């Protein structure tokens, strides 16, 4: 049985951009800043496309929640070999307050509507570093989950997943349907070359809203303040060991 795979791809500020906090401390500056697909989601997309090329998957659908520009992120996924995209339109203030719980509900609903067998997500996004979406999606659907995957193999209707855990690796078997989150070593994503990018322009992207899916996006948390990490204070140089001991005593370290 060939499977249908749903893969999430979030549009985030490019990893190479220096992040600046807005003067009013309500968030970070995003206007005019280079965005790209969350690198962990790129790994998830690559894995889904490889599943399709190995004929494990029959169809790969990419989902992105966010403003209009999220469609560019979907196009990247389509150029990597995804069959079609779903853009869940969330913009303005709603997008600023969109949280993993909302995205999980959206993904769970789409997975049911599209009759997906596997949901593949990046383990976390490099902007908010929440690391919650895959786990909550699995919980909402009551599907098994295999997070931090560094290898995925299909064995008779089950998936054998090698997980990255503290101090080593763990092998788990999950029944399908399942939610999997991708860790860094799962694969190395391919470059989307010109012919792929061109052909991706013609692949279908369906636009829906959270409302269409019956998902409320009321914020569950309130952002009080976003601040830069404190700047590191300069140290001092001491002449000899005695001065060092004296200084340490002075600041109460010994």
């Amino acid at each position, binding site marked *: 049985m*060939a499977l249908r795979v749903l893969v999430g791809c979030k549009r985030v500020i490019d*990893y190479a951009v220096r992040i600046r906090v807005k003067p009013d401390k309500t968030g970070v500056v995003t206007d005019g800043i280079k965005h790209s697909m969350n*690198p962990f989601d790129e790994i998830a997309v690559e894995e889904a496309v490889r599943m399709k090329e190995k004929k494990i998957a029959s169809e*790969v659908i990419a989902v992105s929640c966010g403003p209009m520009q999220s469609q560019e992120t979907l196009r990247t996924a389509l150029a990597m070999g995804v069959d079609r995209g779903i853009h869940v339109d969330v913009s303005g203030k709603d997008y600023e307050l969109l949280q993993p719980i909302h995205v999980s509900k959206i993904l769970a609903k789409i997975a049911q509507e599209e009759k997906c067998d596997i949901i593949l997500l990046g383990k976390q996004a*490099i902007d908010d570093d929440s690391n919650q979406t895959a786990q909550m999606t699995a919980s909402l659907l009551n599907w098994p989950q295999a997070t931090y995957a560094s290898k995925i193999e299909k064995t008779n209707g089950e998936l054998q997943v090698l997980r990255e855990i503290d101090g080593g690796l763990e092998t788990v078997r999950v029944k399908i349907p399942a939610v999997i989150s991708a860790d860094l070593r799962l694969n190395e*994503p391919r470059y989307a070359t*010109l012919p792929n990018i061109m052909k991706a*322009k013609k692949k279908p992207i369906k636009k829906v809203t959270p409302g269409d899916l019956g998902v409320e996006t009321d914020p569950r948390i309130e952002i009080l303040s976003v601040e830069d990490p404190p700047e590191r204070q300069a140290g001092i140089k001491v002449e000899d060991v005695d001065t060092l001991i004296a200084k340490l005593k002075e600041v109460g370290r010994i």
Partner: protein
Amino acid sequence: MASLTAARSKFSVWARGSACGIVHFLSSRTFCSKGAIAGKNIEQAVYQETLLSNPPLLPEIVLNLITPDCRLWWSKVEATNTWFADPFWAFCWPGGQALSRYILDNQKVVKGKNIYDVGSGSGVCGIAACMAGAAHVKAFDIDPVACKIVELNATANKVDMEVTCQNILQETPDKDPPNVILLGDMFYDEALALQMCHWLKCQLENPQPPMVLIGDPGRWAFCHSTHPFNFRCVAKYLLPPTCKEENNGFVHSFVWEQWESILPQEIMTMNVEIHHMTKKASAKVGQCLRQALPSWV
């Protein structure tokens, strides 16, 4: 994210590619005018920006293609648009390659017949039909640049075919109806696929319906728009590595034929889902007449 070195190296490669693209682009800007280059200029641009190359499945055919040896391959899509506006003809699509391979290996399908190559792109299917002995080949493509390219490609392969820019889906010629309609990778766009199905249905309702041959690697729009038809798979080709690289997500390309004398039905009679082409499914769809696996398998 200290652990993102892999992603970083990727971006630097991409940046290098596009930077060098821009430099070339500025230096070779002399005769481009956005979306409207014509005649001699197209020839000159094609000469400068493409290479005469063999599509991987078709060593006997040469086409003007953008290959990894061309600068545009490494530039951004917008750079190609400045020259040609969506040069879909500059790549030999997997459906077109499979269909052309099938025609060249089964020449009787087109020999002595009147052929329409609809959405011809590079013109590869029409060229293959000419080589296989078709009586007359007419290529249709709504992109005027593509039409010019078809002429250039036909000349490069020493074949003679008619090319027209007319939108056949909107105005179908009454004269010389085709015996065979070739559709190489025409199901790449959802809306176009639906239009195409409607048009095909009209063609098949003619008193003397043409034979319809489709090349497609399993595109979503093909799998989801062609249910009313009784297509059977007549050939399956493994895509060579270079072709796979141009078509992420696809491994095979297929040739489909409309069952003669059976009109398309309104109700789905057979779920033509190529990925499920297991032995059982292919037996159901019709026997897979030919499974040509090239030597590199």
